[in-house]
């Protein structure tokens, strides 16, 4: 399996720590204590978490891309995110048809966990910008989708053929339900408010709150939206999965992410192969003076005329 984006050990640790903290921002209703002084916190906690999660997400994204993303991986990220963002409105509005996950799962599978994580986050962000869906929910959606891409990259690498498609389809179904559960969990305290029979009860045993949440999610979405999403994802993976996997693998081969980059004409000792490759923290070509040239803007920089007209 190619890895378009190498995840250094330090990055992995950052990812795990941030994920643990982020999971708490989803599941805090289960753990809120029932002491009087924490009642004030109960109203504050969701707002604090809404503010905290974007920062956590930015940290992880920055860490994953530290040392610079290979331009091929970056272009691939951008293009696949664009495809995902274009696929997303196809399903929106139609009950439960979700067209984002199958490509995310397949791309995470082909390009590795780090790439999958970035793709999930960037896809939803770009899609939100395109369809103007930016709101407090966006970081939570980005993180949930990023976890899906990450998980797809962590599936056993050896599988090929029908077994691979079967595993991916199962994973897609689980991911579809998991995403729905996570987003419901996030929306639960906001959507229902306090005091109804479905609201979380601060200080109640975890199981009790879990029960209430299970009823809430079953009533609102699991049987409709989430099942629809799971069916769409599984069908898409089974029907077009093999062809899409082949196309992605061909692109990965052509991109040759693992090929070492060497500059034969550079005076001085050649860079040992393996050091110049990949995306470790190490700069790719330390011999080149960084200030030798000014970095041009990205391929399509936003610009505007000067205001003095």
């Amino acid at each position, binding site marked *: 399996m190619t890895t378009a984006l190498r995840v250094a050990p330090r990055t992995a640790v950052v990812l795990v720590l941030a994920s643990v903290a982020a999971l708490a921002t989803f599941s805090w209703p289960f753990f809120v204590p029932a002491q009087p002084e924490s009642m004030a916190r109960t109203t504050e906690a969701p707002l604090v978490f809404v503010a905290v999660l974007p920062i956590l997400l930015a940290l992880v994204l920055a860490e994953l891309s*530290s040392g610079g993303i290979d331009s091929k991986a970056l272009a691939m990220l*951008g293009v696949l995110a664009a495809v995902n963002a274009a696929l997303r409105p196809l399903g929106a509005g139609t009950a439960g048809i979700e067209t984002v996950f199958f490509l995310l799962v397949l791309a995470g599978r082909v390009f590795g966990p780090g790439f999958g994580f970035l793709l999930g986050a*960037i896809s939803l962000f*770009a899609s939100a910008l*395109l369809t*103007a*869906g930016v709101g407090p929910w966006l970081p939570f959606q980005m993180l949930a989708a990023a976890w899906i891409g990450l998980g797809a990259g962590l599936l056993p690498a050896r599988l090929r053929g029908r077994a691979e498609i079967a595993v991916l389809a199962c994973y897609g179904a689980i991911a579809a339900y998991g995403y729905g559960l996570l987003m419901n969990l996030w929306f639960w305290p906001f959507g229902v*408010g306090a005091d109804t029979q479905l609201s979380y009860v601060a200080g109640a045993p975890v199981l009790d709150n879990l029960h209430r949440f299970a009823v809430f999610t079953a009533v609102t979405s699991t049987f409709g939206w989430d099942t629809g999403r799971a069916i769409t994802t599984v069908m898409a993976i089974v029907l077009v999965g093999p062809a899409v996997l082949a196309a992605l693998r061909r692109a990965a081969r052509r991109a040759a992410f693992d090929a070492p980059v060497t500059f034969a004409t550079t005076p001085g000792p050649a860079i040992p192969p393996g050091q110049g490759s990949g995306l470790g*923290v190490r700069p790719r070509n330390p011999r080149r003076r960084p200030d030798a040239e000014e970095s041009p803007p*990205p391929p399509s920089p936003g610009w505007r005329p000067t205001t003095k007209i």
Partner: protein
Amino acid sequence: MTDQATADGVGRQTPVTPPDSRSARAGRLPRALHPGAWWLWALGLATAASHTTNPLPLALLVAAAALVVVRRRGDAPWAFAFRMYLILGAVIVAMRVVFRLVFGGGQGDHVLLHLPEIPLPAWAAGIRLFGPVAAEQLLGGFYDGLRLATMLICLGAANALANPKRLLKAVPGALYAVSTAVVVALSVAPQLVESVLRVRRARRLRGAAGQGLRALRGIALPVLADALDRSLALAAAMDSRGYGRTAAIPAGQRALTGGLVLAGLVGVCVGTYGLLDATVPGYLGLPMLIVGLATAVAGMLLAGRQVRRSRYRPDRWRITEVVVAGCGVATAVVMAVAGSVDPVRLYPPVSPLTWPELTPLMLLVVAVAVAPAWLASPPTLAAHRTPRPVLIAPNGTTRSSPKRDTSESEAQR
């Protein structure tokens, strides 16, 4: 989006006097503000809204946000998203009230109507549906929902006013690669439509007039392959333009940034736990969380230094930006003051039922919040930028505005 844009544009194309002469009289040229200023303003409004459940200031805040949006939005696609946020806010309020209606909660004395009770089986936690509906109960749901909806609508105002692509340019250096990927995604997405049309035309020329799933595969897979090939071409173009160079960072500094990020994240984990577990001492809660976040962000900003990039026409933070952002901060601060002075008016009790009241401080909050509708510089509109018809000046020379022609596509940037 486009039909809305044209529908709105019709009204704007009519002015006889060039619109910028009017704003020039006011001493300000139309320009897009730094997106960060709008976001700070909106976050200030949202913070203020989070401090009250009184429907009167909340409704006034929504009105203030709407007025600023209507007066100061451009005509880019995202500028018309505000309506969607209004609808979403209404949905949230309705949902809160309906949930109270169906699942009960928040009992009160003024029972409006009796609905037949439906007890659910034991697996559903012994919940009963419907039952008596009290006014207090519905009002509580309405207040809560309105607060949340107001906060959402304030953020929607930022969405409509701030240019997301310019915001992406302002991200810290450590997120440069990710923001570049987002920019690539935003630029490629429209090209996909063109790609789909091309593949369909090619299929039709080959006589493949399939329908349904087969046609979908016949179109989707070539489009995907096309997009992947395009990404490789794009990568080559980026490489040839020098993208992806990194500065050589000494090992010590790398270790420092890594240590800062890791230590900060550990702090965040501990702080989150402390925030939720009231048995631990208070300093392990929010203070720990903030310190951890600050440490990690410092590490991230330090790591961003190894990214070297130049900015083409960066957004400057000028006096107007300061004023707009200041309005947001002042809104939040005045509301906090109002809360400490008169908490009862900000959280009108649901039982006993009382009529919500406005205080002068609340009116001050709204006045500060709405000020950017006049203080911010007017937006640049595509209708103004369309090349003006060439005017024949009295002395016979043709007059046009060459500088304006270059700004055609700015609204999309």
